[in-house]
């Protein structure tokens, strides 16, 4: 991101701190899409994802005066969004199993790189959303949001090995789903 963009964001954030609704809307426009897709991948369905997005932004605007600019605004609001999603997921009482033997029986993906040219980002996004809840959350945090397994272990209160095994499970399931997508089309 360029310095100019950073300055523009700082101005908007300062206006938001003063309660400027136009600035709040501008900030929402800048970050809502990325945050909504994060919610959708974490939670799996549109309605809950929109609710999480709404509550996250209300929460962010309510405590924006505490944002000191030590991190980027994107990182700050992402943390709020992830916390909101985790709070919703906690209510669902997901159980993260360490190993699912059935996953190990899935055939290995062909190493032929040709297949990937036929896959669209929309198909990958949809396939992630369709993963079982536990491994979907871990896959999203690790592969898309850049958390490592130790951090995921701390956040989700699971062991590092559970995080790793669920991640591998998600990866295999995802490959299977995408392979069938290619075959179908």
């Amino acid at each position, binding site marked *: 991101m360029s310095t100019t963009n950073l300055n523009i964001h700082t101005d908007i954030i300062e206006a938001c701190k003063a309660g400027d609704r136009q600035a709040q809307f501008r900030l929402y426009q800048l970050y809502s899409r990325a945050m909504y897709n994060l919610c959708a991948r974490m939670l799996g369905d549109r309605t809950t994802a929109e609710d999480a997005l709404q509550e996250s932004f*209300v929460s962010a605007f309510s405590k924006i005066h505490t944002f000191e600019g030590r991190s980027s605004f994107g990182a700050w609001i992402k943390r709020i969004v992830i916390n909101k999603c985790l709070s919703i997921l906690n209510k669902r009482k997901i159980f993260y199993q360490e190993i699912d033997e059935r996953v190990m029986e899935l055939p290995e993906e062909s190493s032929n790189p040709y297949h990937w040219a036929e896959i669209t980002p929309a198909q990958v996004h949809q396939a992630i959303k369709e993963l079982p809840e536990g491994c979907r959350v871990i896959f999203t945090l690790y592969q898309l949001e850049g958390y490592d397994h130790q951090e995921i272990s701390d956040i989700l209160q699971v062991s590092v090995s559970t995080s790793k095994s669920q991640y591998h499970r998600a990866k295999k399931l995802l490959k299977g789903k995408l392979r069938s997508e290619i075959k179908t089309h």
Partner: protein
Amino acid sequence: MYQNIEEYIQSQRQQLDVEVPGDAVWDKIDQSLDRKTKSLWERYPLLKVAAAILLFAVGLAVVVNNMGSGKKSDIVADIPSVSLPIDMDQWKQAEANYESRIESLMQQMQQVSIAGDAEAMKLNEEIEQINLELDKQRALIHADNYQPSQGKRMLELYEQKIIIMQKMVDHLEQ
């Protein structure tokens, strides 16, 4: 070309954000922020009328109550009732009661700075004047020549002091 799913995702990370939230989401955020920022008065206009009626009724009750019986003000009535001390022991007990009340008010006042606040400075001066008078009266009271009239004068000064201190607390709270 990508060799695996990780490579694909890392390369296409931005393009994976394919969905857009519905327009209704911002409307709901807007409404929630409105609810948070609007005062109670703005949200419930009738509350103003109810508050005004309640205030009038309470005020009326206080006025009628004071007129009817010639009672002390609420602030003075809040002081533990002390009968006119007729000897030195009773006087000491009465003074301890007033000092306790004054100590409590002092604690409330000390939490806020009065620097630059003209009204608070004026009230503070009045308190200082009463303190001087209290010191003068206290010097006249001795165990061997205690006069109930001296105790009465002291109690009057204490009551005045408490009224002004309460005004100060109310003012600072605003």
